[in-house]
């Protein structure tokens, strides 16, 4: 296999406005995000010859986006997907560039995730849901229609087996909320969360209270990928892809009853091997955080703390600035906003570029970062980036 290490780079990132009610369409937001990413990269729309997106039937198509940027690219592709699709599409882009089909690819995720179709549920036709989800008729009749419930079933058992407590979930939440206080664009900017307050908050769906849930929002994000060679001549500071990997595992996407393995367990050794680094070399992280617990399970999977010691790792403040692994430094999906993982990827790019240099938001001496995607135990993707 050809090594792609350091041969491809992210050269532009951008986002639309973030809100609870955009009052506009995913196409408008995607255009805003794409123009911001192009501006960041110092490129024009005509320089992009591949457009890709992922969605849950809640977005605009790549064809539409290219059309209204006024260009006719060689390649457009839209996939169904959520967490970890960002990493997977970046890998697709690398493959397309490697085989000479395109030169530069723009990948986006646009969603009215708050005012429109909410992943967290509500307003769905229950018979439609039973058919929409694999194995849906075995969960919907039991009232299990929300990802918080599916993830919660995993969390309760994992916490039972590993000694994780509600307070450990709270450390994830309070760490990320603390980061949001340095990010004026974060939804919970100006709304810090103390452990005392976290613990006082009633359960919404045990073992989770509302702070353990991601902050669903309306927004679009975009990322531009090209070869390291082309990146050299660009306006922006390239962030190089050291390794990228993905994996499917576990038989059913929604009916989870095998709690012994998650896809991230398989992705971790692959991505480290490709990048030629280990967990001890990572300076900053963006860890998929649709729910707080998901972060704890991934810290275990990606080797930042062994099973049974993840709770202590977060209780010691290691996810905070100055800790061993400052994570989700824009606030993450728990407190910044939610684009199915892509906003976390934007932040890792900006950290590794040292874009916040001179402010208290910059992770010091950060040269290598990891971002992990997680759609559930069934799908994971991860990427390691360097300055």
């Amino acid at each position, binding site marked *: 296999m050809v090594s792609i290490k350091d041969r491809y780079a992210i050269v532009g990132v951008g986002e639309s406005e973030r809100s609870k009610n955009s009052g506009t369409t995913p196409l408008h937001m995607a255009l805003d995000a794409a123009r911001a990413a192009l501006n960041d990269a110092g490129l024009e729309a005509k320089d992009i010859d591949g457009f890709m997106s992922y969605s849950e039937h809640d977005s605009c198509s790549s064809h539409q986006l290219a059309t209204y940027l006024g260009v006719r690219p060689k390649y457009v592709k839209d996939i169904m997907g959520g967490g970890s699709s960002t990493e997977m599409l970046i890998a697709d882009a690398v493959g397309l560039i490697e085989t000479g089909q395109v030169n530069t690819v723009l990948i986006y995720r646009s969603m009215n995730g708050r005012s429109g179709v909410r992943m967290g549920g509500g307003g769905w036709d229950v018979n439609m849901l039973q058919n929409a989800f694999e194995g849906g008729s075995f969960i919907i009749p039991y*009232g299990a229609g929300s990802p918080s419930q599916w993830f919660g079933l995993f969390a309760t058992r994992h916490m039972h087996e590993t000694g994780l407590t509600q307070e450990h979930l709270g450390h994830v939440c309070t760490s990320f909320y603390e980061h949001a206080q340095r990010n004026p664009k974060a939804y919970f900017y100006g709304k810090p969360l103390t452990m005392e307050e976290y613990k006082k908050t009633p359960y919404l769906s045990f073992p989770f209270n509302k702070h353990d849930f991601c902050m669903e929002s309306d927004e679009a994000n975009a990322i531009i990928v090209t070869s390291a060679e082309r990146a050299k001549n660009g306006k922006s500071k390239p962030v190089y892809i050291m390794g990228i990997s993905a994996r499917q595992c576990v038989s059913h996407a929604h009916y989870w009853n095998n709690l012994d393995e998650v896809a991230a367990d398989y992705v971790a050794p692959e991505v480290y091997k490709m990048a030629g680094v280990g967990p001890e070399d990572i300076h900053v992280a963006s860890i998929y955080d649709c729910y707080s617990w998901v972060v704890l399970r991934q810290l275990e999977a990606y080797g930042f703390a062994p099973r049974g010691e993840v709770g202590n790792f977060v209780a010691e403040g290691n996810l905070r600035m100055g800790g061993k692994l400052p994570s989700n430094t824009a606030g993450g999906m728990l407190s910044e906003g939610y684009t199915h993982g892509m906003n976390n990827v934007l932040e890792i790019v900006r950290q590794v570029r040292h874009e916040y240099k001179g402010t208290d938001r910059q992770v010091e001496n950060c040269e290598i970062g990891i971002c992990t995607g997680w759609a559930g135990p069934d799908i994971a993707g991860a990427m390691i980036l360097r300055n």
Partner: protein
Amino acid sequence: MDNQKPIPVKTQDNSPYWDGADRHELILQKCNSCQEYSHPPGPSCAKCGGTELSWESQGSEISGKVYSYIISYRPFLPGFQDDLPLIIAIVEIDKLPNVRLIGNVLQCSTDDIRIGLPVKMIWKELTEERSLPQWIQV
């Protein structure tokens, strides 16, 4: 009976399971190639891809233990607003520890629910024709 709640939709892949439930019986799909139970059932075996599938009755005396659970304090679907707090559990079948079924543990207080709790299967009638497997504490 509770007509507001979702009724399991029968499909070509799952109807023996739900037909069995309507008769208050647990019917599981089994793969003739790898001999594993496949739940939820599908068009072929989810473990090995085998296409020779059979259906095996486990009878009506089904006991198990709570493998994991959550407690919902909000109805995330219509029809559950009067059932809060709602306990949703994964139950490991005593006779078949590799088979885990998702269902509600009914008539159980939030103080009593725990991993390892012994439960047995009962059937709740949704309509005159349709029944839903559920669990209660032993």
